[in-house]
């Protein structure tokens, strides 16, 4: 270790003398800075998620003002990919080959991450904490440089399936899903969960929609008319609001399961109508910022203070801003654990060595855990029911890692 530090110092001295380029050993890393790459849909269909990039940038700004990590400031380079895979490929190549970033962090979207999946692993650059719940990111053997973050869609759907099996005799299930990989992933998990309980026939109707569709009203009407008494709602925020409102308007009151992606009180339930959203059930792993039970929670108070100071334009009702904050904290922990060795191998190694990491905005009892064979950092969730004002947690904390 000593020899390595000496070499490092020598390298730095030579760099400062202009002899050796800083990018020789560890791209994106200098004695005073670490450069991190990021792509996000700041425009286009998925632009509502653009706030995640903004809140992360704000968080790193705060860290930098507090002195950085191990003396290094975080240089967060983020580009818009408009949720278009070819654009993601281009921007990621720019980040790696032109901007020479150390690694990628929290790139958003399933098709977009799929497009760079092979490239990142071929180039041996960490594709860390991707912002998607697709199950395929936790594959240390096949893709050792890619790691997910949030509980997978399939695991979450299985929780819902188990809940329905336990609590609804004679369940007749209607499903509304977005016709893309995200929607289909949830659908698969749900169907697998039902199949395991020999209950595949419980599904009476499936209705899909395209992201380019104006409304899902027609689909909701069909679902009600199918006689379903359970409604699994796999929609992104805008369509979730529409579906909740329409179901309410036509007087349909099934057991309504809402996927976690759209569980934001501020962004989804309030526009749909708090009264219409009563009795919705979802699985949570983050503290929802509109929940009054966290009002005096230190973690929440810190988050709120951070938002006010560093991201005043951000919506403090939107759980996406809690998501970005939390995953950024996860990254800072990884960087701390790296110490002075910010090589890509070590970054990946430390990311795979998170033990019972507790982050302030994770629900109590939920911890981040990774290992060389476990590339799913967060696998625990808890069910919650909306009481007209907030999500009320109930039941046990499900842990997908314990089959």
């Amino acid at each position, binding site marked *: 270790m000593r020899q390595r530090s000496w070499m490092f110092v020598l390298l730095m001295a030579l760099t400062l003398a202009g002899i050796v380029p800083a990018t020789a050993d560890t791209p994106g890393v200098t004695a005073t800075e670490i450069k991190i790459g990021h792509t996000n849909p*700041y425009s286009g269909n998925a632009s509502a998620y653009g706030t995640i990039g903004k809140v992360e940038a704000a968080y790193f700004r705060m860290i930098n003002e507090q002195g950085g990590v191990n003396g290094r400031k975080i240089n967060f380079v983020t580009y*818009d990919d408009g949720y*278009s895979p*070819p654009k993601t*490929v281009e921007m990621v190549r720019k980040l790696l080959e032109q901007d020479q970033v150390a690694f990628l962090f929290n790139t958003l979207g399933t*098709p977009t991450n799929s*497009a760079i999946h*092979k490239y990142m692993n071929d180039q041996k650059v960490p594709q860390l904490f991707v912002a998607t719940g697709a199950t395929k990111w936790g594959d240390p053997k096949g893709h050792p440089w890619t790691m997910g973050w949030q509980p997978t869609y399939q695991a979450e759907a299985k929780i819902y399936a188990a809940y329905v099996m336990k609590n609804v005799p004679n369940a007749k299930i209607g499903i509304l899903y977005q016709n893309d990989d995200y929607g289909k992933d949830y659908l698969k998990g749900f169907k697998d969960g039902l199949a395991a309980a020999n209950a595949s026939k419980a599904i009476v109707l499936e209705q899909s929609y*395209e*992201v380019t569709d104006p409304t899902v009203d027609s689909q909701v009407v069909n679902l009600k008319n199918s006689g379903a008494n359970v409604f699994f709602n796999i929609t992104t925020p805008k369509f979730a609001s529409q579906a909740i409102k329409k179901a309410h308007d036509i007087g349909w009151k099934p057991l309504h399961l809402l996927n976690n992606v759209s569980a934001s009180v501020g962004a989804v339930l309030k526009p749909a109508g708090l009264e219409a959203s009563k009795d919705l059930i979802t699985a949570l792993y983050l503290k929802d910022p509109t929940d009054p039970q966290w009002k005096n929670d230190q973690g929440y108070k810190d988050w709120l203070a951070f938002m006010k100071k560093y991201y005043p334009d951000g919506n403090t009702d939107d759980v996406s801003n809690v998501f970005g904050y939390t995953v950024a904290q996860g990254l800072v922990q990884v960087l701390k654990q790296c110490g002075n060795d910010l090589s890509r191998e070590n970054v990946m190694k430390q990311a795979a060595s998170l033990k019972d990491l507790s982050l302030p905005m994770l629900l109590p009892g939920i911890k981040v855990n990774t290992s060389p064979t476990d590339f799913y950092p967060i696998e625990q969730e808890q069910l919650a029911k909306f009481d007209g004002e907030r999500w009320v947690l109930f039941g046990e904390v499900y842990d997908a890692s314990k089959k």
Partner: protein
Amino acid sequence: MSARVRLGLLLVLLAIAVALPLFVSNFRLFQFTQVATYAIALLGLNMLTGYNGQISLGHGAFYALGAYTAAIMIDKWNVPYALTLPVAGLLCLVAGFLFGIPALRLEGLYLALATFALALAVPQILKYFEDWTGGSQGIVLSKPKPPWGLAITPDQWLYFFTLAVMLVLFFLARNLLAGRTGRAIVAIRDNPTAAQAMGINTPLYKSLTFGVSAGYTGVAGALSALTIAFVAPDTFNVFLSITFLVGIVIGGLASISGAILGGFFIQFVPNWAQDISKAAPWAIYGVFLILTMYVMPFGIAGTARLLMARRLRRAGTARAG
């Protein structure tokens, strides 16, 4: 501009294009490969819209067809990537020709909207046949490796490959458009009735042009699949078709060089816009579009042509350039 001067200019540009890999990074080459790919697609569209006057807002559909043809052939049947290009081109040619037949009945605006409808339906159709297309997950491909043990990077190889394909296709197009066929095609655009009266088989030419135009765009799609090494349905959305239209108008309608200029525009200007303004990059892009149309209403190549013609007139030379 005399033919000699033009040839000289072309050779110089060619030399620069071939020597490019020596000066620029792999990433830039990747971007230039995209430019070349777009140029082929834009030439295809230009043949139909610029030279033949049939407005198509749906060429993204043929781009998608070409891309998926290549992807499926490589992924499912391990076909060598070079073979996928002619297959993609041929398939799209037939598809374009078949689409062109009912399209004969449609006038300008309605044709544009019918092709618009085609482009709209593409992502849904691709997702529906998921056994073939991989559905929303898409298909992941490997980048082609340089053959014959050449000591160049895959990006450099792909660049040369695309450049070569582009040059061949452009040469063929130029010959087609400069000769009798080209004159017939343009005549149909300018005055369909007169063209018919002169004995040109208008329906046949129109459908064939549609086919060839689709074929070119299909080859471009196949190339893009190789370059990006990934295809997914929602990439080939309506905005892609609109981007192609923007490309040919900005580049210059009825112009072969316009296709390349258009390719540069649609590849690089959105990036510049992002550099200028992170907050509203597409607003900057929109401003670019509008200003370009104010200053160069006939596209870059079109306006250059006008200026050159004006210069010739002023110089008193009566050459047809």
